[in-house]
């Protein structure tokens, strides 16, 4: 099926140059052409110039600060283009870099909400800048662009898919992908698979979640997959008290998934059910929210699902990027997918069938589940919902992990993730039997940390092989990169960019550049391995000489 996909003529496309979508099937090495570097979600680079022995010699190549205000039209060194359907009066303020930076050829494509910059890969100099005048919406982050042939495509907060000329920054087209009136907002990095562009959105107001596929050449819709039942006949309807509850049940798709060429499955996680904290009017497991889902990329049909958090009542979506692993369990080679969910549980699943093989708790203080069901899903304890006298709940609303990408090294067999443990007192403030709306109806009081760490988890058992506890106050914020040089790069939450020995967690290197706000990346330029990372509005490129 994958082969058929790749051989399909791109006759509908006006473009033939640029980045060939087939090149995304290659394991991550010289460049970083899609959100996770390649389709596996591993964020494992085969580059090995920088190693455990020489990482101390990694030095700064260049740094650049982005200016995410409204751009001036005059006096720029580089071309600036302004598009958008808004008035230009909406103030978005300063924005941090919280996504992947694609590196294709000589350019880096960097985003913040409403902004795309193309920067010279050798010094960070600006090649072009595109700014989108927004209609509004919560400007909480943008996870990056997709590159398809000669186009750069990104999502705007106010729900447009915008295609730019990758070389010049001029707009090719834009198309609306979700209703702004219904209060959707869009942050996801689109994912190119062949002649499909996979696009997700977000929403906090009790709206149904969906994944859509668009034609990357024209922006025409190819299919739309809803993550909750939209008719009485849809699968999962039996896990909702009514169709009305299901159709307002959330399950947003806001973090990129992974793609398995052999099965042609795109595997992704869905967001929390809504209303978020008051489950009273949506009794049941609420499929397919907080669920790992495999869809066929050509048809948008669901192949299998596994629910990582039945009937969530804590805003702990399971949208985290899953990682595809070709591994061995009990002596048998298996095609697997692993995910460390926001709720503090780690899962390994057969990615062909959806069968659960491993469920363990990796969040040291996660206390909300009563037991693990036979299916492998953790069972929520009703006493740990928001209650009037207050329940003590771990983790806090941000979860043990969030959007920040984890990584997996086939050399060590370890899955690396930040592990954030904290406690909230969670009070129900709206005991109305109809439930609240959105994320309303509760009061959340943070009462202390349970200690944060970087954890290296064995995908076969779910047990933690090594764990680096951050000193009090550290943790959070940064994603993870691992390399064939035996390294794990991440941020320590105390202003340091750090490198560990991937095998045993020895801390090998640090540089104090500010708190890391995305996941580190690596690529090869002029024969030299570079490591790129963002700290707020500033980019830092390191190089091995």
């Amino acid at each position, binding site marked *: 099926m994958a082969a058929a996909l790749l051989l399909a003529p791109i006759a509908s496309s006006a473009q033939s140059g640029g980045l060939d979508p087939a090149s995304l099937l290659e394991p991550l090495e010289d460049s970083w052409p899609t959100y996770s570097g390649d389709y596996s979600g591993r964020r494992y680079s085969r580059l090995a110039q920088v190693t455990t022995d020489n990482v101390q010699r990694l030095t700064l190549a260049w740094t650049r600060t982005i200016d995410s205000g409204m751009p001036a039209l005059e006096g720029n060194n580089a071309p600036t283009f302004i598009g958008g359907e808004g008035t230009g009066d*909406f103030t978005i303020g300063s924005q941090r870099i919280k996504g992947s930076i694609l590196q294709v050829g000589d350019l880096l494509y960097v985003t913040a909400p409403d902004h795309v910059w193309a920067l010279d890969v050798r010094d960070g100099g600006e090649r072009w800048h595109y700014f989108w005048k927004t*209609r*509004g*919406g*919560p400007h909480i982050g943008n996870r990056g662009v997709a590159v398809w042939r000669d186009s750069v495509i990104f999502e705007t907060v106010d729900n447009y898919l915008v295609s730019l000329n990758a070389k010049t920054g001029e707009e090719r087209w834009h198309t609306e992908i979700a*209703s*702004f*009136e*219904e*209060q959707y907002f869009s942050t996801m990095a689109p994912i190119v698979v062949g002649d499909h562009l996979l696009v997700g959105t977000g929403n*906090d*107001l*009790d*709206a149904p979640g969906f994944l859509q596929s668009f034609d990357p050449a024209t922006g025409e819709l190819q299919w739309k997959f809803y993550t909750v039942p939209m008719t*009485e006949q849809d699968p999962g309807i039996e896990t909702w008290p009514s*169709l*009305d509850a299901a*159709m*307002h049940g959330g399950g947003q798709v806001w973090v990129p998934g992974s793609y398995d060429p052999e099965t042609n499955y795109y595997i992704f996680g869905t967001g929390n059910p809504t209303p978020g904290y008051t489950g009273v009017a949506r009794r049941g497991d609420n499929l397919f929210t907080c669920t790992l889902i495999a869809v066929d990329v050509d048809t948008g049909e669901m192949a299998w699902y596994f629910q990582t958090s039945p009937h969530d009542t804590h805003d702990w979506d399971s949208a985290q990027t899953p990682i595809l692993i070709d591994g061995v369990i009990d002596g048998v080679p298996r095609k697997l997918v692993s995910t460390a969910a926001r709720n503090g549980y780690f899962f390994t699943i057969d990615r062909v069938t959806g069968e659960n093989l491993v469920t363990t708790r990796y969040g040291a*203080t996660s*206390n909300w589940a009563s037991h693990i069901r036979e299916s492998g899903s953790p069972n929520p304890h009703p*006493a740990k919902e928001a*209650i*009037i*006298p*207050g*329940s*003590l709940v*771990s983790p806090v609303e941000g979860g043990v992990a969030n959007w920040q990408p984890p990584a997996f090294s086939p050399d060590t067999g370890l899955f690396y993730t930040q592990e954030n443990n904290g*406690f909230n*007192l969670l*009070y129900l*403030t*709206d005991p*109305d039997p*109809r439930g*609240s*709306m*959105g*994320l*309303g*109806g509760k*009061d959340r*009081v*943070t*009462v*202390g*940390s*349970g200690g944060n760490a970087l954890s290296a988890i064995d995908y076969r058992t779910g047990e933690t092989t090594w764990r680096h506890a*951050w*000193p*009090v*106050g550290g943790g959070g914020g940064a994603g993870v990169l691992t390399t064939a040089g035996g390294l794990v790069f991440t941020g*320590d939450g*105390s*202003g*340091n960019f750090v490198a560990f020995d991937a095998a045993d967690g020895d*801390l090998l290197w*640090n540089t*104090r550049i500010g708190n890391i706000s995305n996941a580190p990346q690596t690529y090869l330029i002029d024969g030299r391995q570079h490591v790129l990372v963002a700290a707020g509005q500033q980019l830092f490129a390191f190089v091995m000489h």
Partner: protein
Amino acid sequence: MLQGAVTSRVVRGVGALTVALSPHVADVSVPGARPAAVLAAAQPPQTRDQRLYPALQREPGDPEVIARGQAVYGISCRACHGLDLRGGDLGGPNLLRSQLVLKDDGGDLMGPVIRDGQSGAGGSSMPPQNLSDADLDAVVEYIHDVLGTASRQGGPPAGEELELDILVGDATAGQTYFAERCASCHSPTGDLQGIGARVESPKELQDTWVRGGARNAERPPITVSVTLPSSQRVSGTLERLNDFLVVLTEDDGRHRSFSRRGDTPQVEVDDPMAAHREMLPLYGDTDIHNVTAYLVTLQ
């Protein structure tokens, strides 16, 4: 309910008994409506075009039309959709999250449904409403007006204050727990004397003791001792600590910083709050409720 129970006042979502009015229609007299000043203070200080979504950005309608729409709603819509628009006993859906209502522009979508009725999702159906054009326009305007008062992150409009009693614990059991687990550091006749009177509400008291201090209270300083390879020992108040650096201030105000590499130099941290953090995984919710019930008796 135990002796000394106090109710706490918690702001609830839209109330079942009163409809929240936005500031510009607060002169319309509705029994139970919150005063305009309270609502105005709750609104974020931003202009309409800085609000996030069309429902909130919409220009306010004519107060007289809205008041008329509210009256029409009360007669024709309320039984099914609820006084607060969030759905009613007769099965009408929540209008504040309705895709049709959210996408409506001046009645273009709501108008036909109100006039002609429709079969709804899930088998419910809406009968046609016999309204004059003016009444229909007014009720549409009123519904948009309520939509414009929604809270952040999809929350409903703030409604009337609701009294919720968080005191469900057993004070005697709480006293026993306190004696076993808390009394090594705290005393009901010492640092916690009168705590039940000093802290405004039982909820605030519970948050405070579980956290180990009021939200904005100054925390007792964390002290640190650094033992250098020369065996010299430097102590003071901890300023910063990560895997690579420890920064402290000595008693004489002198600022010191030391690079760290693994266990060198040796760093010992004494955090007075550590005991509270270490208790967090150990509490049961019943323990917490019991201790709170006990502490409110310390008047």
